[in-house]
């Protein structure tokens, strides 16, 4: 923790209004549940109404005090309009005042081969991995500054915001973009005393993960086969610990810690010595890992060429898809 935060009170959700996007399943729900059990008011936003209703029941079962306010709202956050409308709904029961902490958990991954992607796949990837967080952060920042209020904005990306490999061409760029925005706003929102954090979880066992596995190329699955996924609860606990420690970049597993430390650049780090040790490990370990992955991919060429032939995807040089706007 940087020295100027020694003595700063550890962040405590008790009595605070926490707004969680993507709060009806997975990491978002796990987070909302923990925050509720620690005395926070919780608002969750997602698309599916049934999931939201089920989620609110779960959150209710963690109520600590009768005065805690739990609300759920159905909105699509991939547009500026949706993000504004969601924010209007969220602040309505709080005298129109902005939340104390915003957790941007909404996000979906659809891994596939680049040459099998359409423009729509790239656009959707950016919508579901970046815009869904960026628009809410935009709406919230403007309102916080307008009201002269402070608070925390927590972006959630992925290990794939620090590194990437075959199969992730519509998802990893979006997650890298989240990092870019988080790093810009961490710097800029000091103007308003608004804190910004970035949480990068590795694979989590969630409904999102099940969706992802449906399209994931075999070679990507093979590369990932050694991974030990986290539960959503473990990830949520790691996130909250990172906020309490006032870390700008937060991760909840060792592999991501290695990447966090070795891609740090000018972003704030954790303990200087600890980060150096991680960086040294990564300096030796990462090239070895990457070389072995490259070898696997090279060995996969023939099988992949056959796959493309049988799929017939490239013979017609597929339709590029709709325009951006």
């Amino acid at each position, binding site marked *: 923790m940087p020295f100027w935060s020694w003595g700063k009170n550890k962040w405590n959700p008790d009595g605070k209004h926490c707004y969680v996007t993507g709060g009806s399943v997975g990491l978002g729900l796990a987070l909302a549940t923990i925050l509720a059990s620690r005395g926070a008011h919780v608002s969750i936003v997602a698309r599916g109404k049934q999931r939201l209703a089920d989620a609110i029941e779960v959150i209710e079962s963690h109520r600590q005090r009768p005065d805690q306010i739990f609300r759920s709202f159905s909105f699509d956050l991939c547009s500026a309009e949706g993000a504004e409308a969601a924010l209007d709904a969220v602040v309505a029961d709080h005298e129109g005042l902005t939340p104390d902490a915003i957790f941007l958990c909404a996000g979906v991954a659809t891994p596939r*081969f*680049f*040459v099998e*992607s359409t*423009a729509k796949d790239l656009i959707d990837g950016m919508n579901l991995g*970046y815009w869904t967080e*960026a628009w809410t952060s*935009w709406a919230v*920042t403007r309102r916080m*500054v*307008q009201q*002269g*209020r402070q608070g925390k904005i927590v972006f959630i990306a992925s290990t*794939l*915001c620090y*590194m*990437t*490999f*075959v*199969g*992730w*061409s519509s998802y*990893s*760029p*979006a997650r890298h973009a989240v990092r*870019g*925005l988080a*790093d*810009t*706003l961490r*710097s*800029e929102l*000091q*103007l*308003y*005393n608004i804190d910004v954090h970035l949480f990068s979880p590795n694979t989590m066992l969630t409904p999102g993960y099940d969706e992802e596995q449906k399209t994931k190329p075999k070679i990507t699955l093979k590369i990932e086969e050694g991974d030990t996924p986290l539960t959503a609860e473990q990830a949520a606990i790691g996130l909250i610990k990172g906020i309490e420690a006032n870390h700008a970049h937060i991760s909840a597993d060792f592999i991501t810690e290695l*990447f966090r430390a*070795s*891609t*740090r*650049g*000018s972003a*704030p*780090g954790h303990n200087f010595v600890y980060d*150096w040790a991680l*960086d040294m490990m*990564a300096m030796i370990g*990462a*090239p070895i890992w*990457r070389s072995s*992955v*490259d070898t696997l*991919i090279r060995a996969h*060429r023939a099988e*992949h060429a056959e796959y493309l032939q049988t799929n017939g995807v*490239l013979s017609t*040089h597929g339709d*590029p898809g*709709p325009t*951006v706007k």
Partner: protein
Amino acid sequence: MFWQKNWDVKGKHCYVTGGSAGLGLSLAVLLTKKGADVSIVARNEGRLQKALAQLEAVRQTPNQLLKAYSFSLTTASTAKEALDAACKDHGGRCPDAVFLCAGKSTPGFWVEEDETTVRRGMDDTYFVQAFSALAAAKRMARDHFQGRIVFVSSVLGYMSMIGYSTYSPGKFALRGLAETLRSELILYGIGVHIFFPATIYSPGYEEENKTKPAITLKIEETDGGLKPEDAAKALLRGVEKGNFHITPDFITNVFRSSTRGSTPQNNVVVDAIYSLIGWIALPVWRQSVDATVRGHRSQHQQYLEQKAVFKLEELEEHIGQDSS
């Protein structure tokens, strides 16, 4: 590292987007001087013709194919049409290398951005290159053609700071795409490179400074910059040497090595030294920038009030509230 060391552009077809000004034009001129066939793509027909005249002026052989194509690259269909047009003039053959220099920067304060400027920022940094890369990769894979795709990011794809909320995310996204494709296009023998320059003294830079917040200008005031010709030389040299991440100067090399992750390094020993320098110097630099930003708070509040960024009535309620 690539199988072909010291790649030579002579006689090769090089496709350059953003080729009518700045880095793209300087690169196109350099490629022409080195004997390549060059196709430049941009939107503005007038600028393209002027640029083509510059290429003609340095033509090396009578049979070099030097062509200009006017297309918008921020939609996938026109990005593909542009590439198809260039391939048609080469008997349907894919370019040997695709240099994606198209891009634009419009810095500003996040609270002053509206929906249009935020969205345009991503189009003008990321999609303007991603759609061309998609068209090129598909074509190369279909034709079993072992070409190269070269992205142009920025030092603001390694790190970010105040003023760049509509620029940096797209430049980071380009890194994400290039890294994924370096790995994935091994399946087809297609090479991938990405260039991370800092300031280039180009028409784009002058445009950028029109909207750049004063505080951002202040932080950057001691930065040097490169002339477009020098940036282009560094970019091409990096591609010729087979470097994946290409950085033209000391500062960008320090950032490259300090954000290494699992990116292939160019020279293990030299890059370790850059890492060490970054490990000490970058936190110091960032903390001084943070202090500058914090010190700017009250001036910024005045600026927001003067510009009436938020509705006046609501502002009058909050003037007097201490927000710093």
